[in-house]
């Protein structure tokens, strides 16, 4: 099981960040060529990311490159650098329709062939950043067998919705979170929650992590290394959850051994979904 709890953003033009990001051990590192890089540094950042991808330290960790949109002058050049550099995943920003994924997929296949990379080796993910993207989330998530995840990006989405972050339970993001999450589950891929921008507010960050985890998101996009450990701790099963999962699975095994069709623990019947959840808790604990 590949855990995707934390996707750490690393600005593509920041040599120091590119040289050290792996030490924070996020589940995935996302080299950003889009919003974090000014237009006049796009060429240099693209080469920096291309070279960093080939550094041995990044062979041990899942690498993602956020390219610029394909309809910009930078998008296709970024894609060449990402695929030829060996990025495991390409993240397309501002994805509104499934057609954009189809276009991306065709270009990736062409570049893989041109550089001798195995066909299908480059996976894709989409960031949903608008009302259109949210409405089309299922079509986007299921647009290609290369898709491994979708992410909700809150800033652009809320601007598009004519609103802003309210803090607290964030009702303004509820529909989008639910829609993106349902699309991911229907497509059997992972879902990432929005970034939390105030890196000095651990309490607010953890409050938001609790919302995302409670809804069922696999993880969050992160903009600061200090958020990695906080997130991993929050996503780790508690000792009580782990103990309960072990007892559920032990009870199921005992029932199976004794030829019983019904599994019970502490006088309560255990349904298949409870068993499945217990297996998931153990898998996550082992993978972590």
């Amino acid at each position, binding site marked *: 099981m590949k855990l995707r709890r934390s996707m750490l953003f690393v600005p593509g033009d920041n*040599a*120091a960040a*590119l*040289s*050290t990001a792996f030490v924070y051990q996020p589940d995935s590192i996302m080299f950003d060529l889009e919003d974090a890089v000014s237009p006049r540094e796009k*060429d*240099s950042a693209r*080469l*920096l990311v*291309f*070279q*960093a991808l*080939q*550094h041995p330290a990044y062979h041990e960790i899942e690498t993602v490159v956020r390219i610029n949109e394909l309809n910009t002058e930078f998008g296709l*050049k970024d894609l*060449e650098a990402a695929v*030829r550099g060996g990025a495991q995943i390409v993240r397309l920003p501002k994805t509104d329709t499934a057609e954009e994924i189809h276009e991306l997929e065709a270009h990736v296949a062409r570049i893989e062939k041109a*550089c001798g990379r195995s066909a299908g080796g480059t996976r894709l993910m989409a960031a949903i950043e608008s009302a259109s993207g949210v409405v089309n989330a299922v079509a986007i998530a299921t647009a290609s067998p290369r898709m491994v995840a979708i992410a909700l990006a809150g800033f652009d989405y809320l601007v598009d919705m004519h609103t802003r972050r309210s803090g607290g339970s964030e009702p303004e993001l509820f529909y989008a979170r639910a829609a993106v999450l349902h699309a991911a589950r229907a497509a059997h891929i992972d879902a990432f929650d929005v970034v939390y921008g105030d890196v000095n507010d651990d309490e607010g960050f953890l409050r938001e992590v609790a919302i995302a985890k409670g809804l069922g998101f696999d993880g969050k996009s992160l903009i600061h290394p200090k958020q990695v450990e906080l997130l991993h701790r929050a996503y780790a099963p508690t000792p009580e959850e782990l103990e309960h999962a072990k007892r559920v699975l032990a009870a199921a095994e005992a029932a199976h051994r004794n030829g019983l069709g019904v599994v019970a623990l502490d006088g309560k019947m255990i349904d298949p979904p409870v068993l499945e959840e217990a297996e998931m808790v153990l898998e996550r604990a082992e993978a972590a």
Partner: protein
Amino acid sequence: MKVIKESLAGTLESSDLLVKVAPSDKGSLDIAIQSEVIKQFGKQIERVVTDTLNKLSITEGSFVIEDKGALDCVIRARVQAAVLRATGSEDMDWRKLS
């Protein structure tokens, strides 16, 4: 590739380097390297710079490197960026950049 104009790439921040390129009046290839770790890594930095220039078929130009403790991959990327800017290259030959 031929250096036809001055260019800069990189920064003077820690773990980075600044590469300054200019056309050569004498038609020669001149490389000057300054680094806080020149005693320990000067030869390695020079090797990475010259290998990168060789792959790009650069035989002329003045290159001034101010290193701030950059990894080899960063040195390679900044030299490549400076060369592509100095040669006005739009199309990349990715095989020469690996």
